[in-house]
């Protein structure tokens, strides 16, 4: 068998003379994860909400400095999400890739597999899926078939891109944070080449793929929201069930808590690492294709809008729990939509808006850290 190749780099040879208990932890992440399982649902909601509010407060000062009344801006944000006719469907649309990628991240982070490669997997998935559905001779297939093979190709491509990081980690001990970061940049270059040359629409003036109209995702509930949101909604309970009731979910958690024990008693931790990277990659790839076929008409140079990065934050704020990811994804999407709307209304500088959104992220992370420390000292 191939087991000698897949075994953990550290196993066996240099055991510690003393058992360390509890095992070394990334304290902050552990605090986050622990709260997801047991202690205080309240604090898991309270901390991010209070932190986000604090960030918005600071943002409000900046808005006021810019000469606009922050209260009316925040009012416009709420309006943009809750009262504008398409507020909800926009929010759902933006949340879709965030949740799809975020659930993948959540699974990986539960296993303490620190991938940050969602963006690259998303792009690679979009490129592969688009390549397949815009390939010559395939356009005559029925729409359903086209959609399925397009999404399938995207999932496979994303999974391979993620799996590559897993193979590098298992075989060569390459750091997953670093390799997935590299693979994200490489994925972007791949996209640039693909739309400029590889799968370019020869008719198009600009660097674009052919239109994917034949494989466009239908919308559902007669809404502006495309079917992809349904995928995200379905994925959440599936992921939850996997974590709670499936062997694979058990292994993921076991890997996160103690790879040595998993290895010695249940399953090769290297293979669980690989599998979780493959699944997270596949979900990110799916997100890429869902966005291309659900929202856009074709794949262009600007396909990288950063969902793969934002989803990291969504996964963490969502406490690595699928339901949490859904809520955080919707929250983040709502913030995006609301700010967009307010930005249009008040003609705010775009840099100010991105500054405030970035503050929200930092404050939430910071708030978590403060809460964790406070818990520690008690």
């Amino acid at each position, binding site marked *: 068998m191939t087991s000698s190749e897949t075994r953990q780099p550290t196993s066996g040879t240099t055991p510690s003379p003393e058992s360390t208990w509890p095992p070394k932890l*990334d304290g902050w992440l552990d605090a986050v994860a622990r709260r997801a399982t047991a202690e205080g649902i309240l604090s898991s909601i309270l901390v991010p909400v209070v932190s986000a509010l604090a960030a918005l407060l600071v943002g409000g000062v900046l808005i006021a400095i810019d000469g606009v009344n922050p209260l009316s801006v925040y009012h416009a944000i709420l309006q943009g999400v809750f009262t504008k006719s398409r507020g909800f469907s926009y929010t759902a649309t933006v949340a879709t890739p965030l949740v799809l990628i975020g659930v993948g991240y959540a699974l990986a982070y539960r296993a303490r597999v620190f991938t940050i490669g969602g963006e690259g997997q998303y792009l690679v998935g979009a490129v592969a899926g688009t390549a397949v559905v815009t390939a010559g001779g395939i356009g005559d297939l029925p729409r359903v078939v086209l959609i399925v093979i397009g999404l399938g190709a995207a999932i496979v491509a994303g999974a391979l891109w993620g799996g590559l990081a897993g193979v590098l980690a298992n075989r060569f*001990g390459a750091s997953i944070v670093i390799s997935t970061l590299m693979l994200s940049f*490489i994925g972007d270059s791949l996209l640039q080449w693909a739309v400029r040359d590889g799968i370019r629409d020869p008719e198009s003036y600009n660097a674009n793929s052919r239109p994917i109209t034949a494989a466009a995702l239908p919308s559902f509930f007669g809404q502006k929201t495309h079917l992809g949101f349904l995928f995200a909604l379905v994925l959440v309970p599936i992921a939850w069930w996997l974590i709670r009731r499936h062997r694979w979910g058990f292994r993921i958690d076991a890997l996160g808590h103690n790879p040595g024990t998993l290895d010695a008693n249940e399953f090769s931790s290297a293979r669980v690492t690989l599998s979780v990277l493959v699944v997270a990659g596949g979900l990110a790839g799916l997100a890429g294709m869902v966005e291309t076929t659900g929202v856009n008409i074709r794949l262009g140079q600007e396909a990288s809008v950063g969902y793969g990065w934002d989803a990291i934050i969504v996964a963490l704020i969502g406490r690595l729990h699928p339901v949490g990811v859904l809520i955080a994804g919707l929250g983040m999407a709502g913030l995006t939509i609301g700010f967009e709307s307010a930005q249009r209304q008040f003609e705010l*500088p775009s840099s100010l808006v991105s500054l405030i959104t970035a503050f929200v992220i930092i404050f939430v992370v910071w708030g978590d850290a403060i809460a964790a420390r406070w818990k520690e000292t008690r």
Partner: protein
Amino acid sequence: MDTLFSIATVEAGIRLGLPVALAALGAIINERSGVLNLGLEGMMLSGALGGYIVNDATGSPWIGLLAGLLVGALTGGVFAGLVVTFRTSQVVTGIAFTIVAIAATTYLFQLRWDIGELPPRVERLGMWPLVALTLVCVAGVWFLFRRTTLGLTISAVGESPESADALGYNVVLIRWMATIAGGALAGLGGAVLVNGPLGLFIEEVTAGRGWVALALVVFAGWRPVPAVAGAFLFGLCDAAQLRLQGTATEVPYEVFLALPYVVTLIALVVRARRSHTPAALGDPYVRGAA
């Protein structure tokens, strides 16, 4: 083809490599102490803006460089406060930090030069003083890790913080210092970009050089000399790539965009476990938790 193998190509490679080399040196100090710095791009960009504004105000590119260094150090301090003292996730904080820096520099830049005002050209430094500066920095970093107790201490903190702690070293303080130093060099790199032969700032002027620098650090196995050599190598690749476009060679230029990252991945694989990754890279330190 003769233009390809000319002194000019080499010089172009050096110019392109300088800012990246400095940022990579910063990241080395920073990461050898165990702090992963995904905020590097943001620190570079902050240093670039700081250097530009001060150069514009004082008319001295050297003071501009100093300002870039200080602004970089300041960003390093803020980052250290979050990840070292508050022990926030280094990955998320780093990414968010870069987002903040891009937004903040754009915002400030636009606040300073409103629409309709072209950003002024500032006094510039030639390539050779900057080469000298970079060589001084690389020698300094090399010296720090090879010849000084402080360097040994930083490495020890990145390798085994509990050991350093038990010996009475202040892990938090050393990580603070290393992160500030890392930010300072990254900021200097940004300032060198705008106060060097370019003499200009525009939004996101660093254009991803911080990420290349991060890749280089891994590629170089956290050693200063290979990192700087790598920076110049990639600079040379870019310079050559631009010169190749006229000729018949049809390598897509996206290959060159991806080159630093591909080579880093290959380096991760080829040098496998000898990659000298600081063992505690990315782990916050809490006494007694291990």
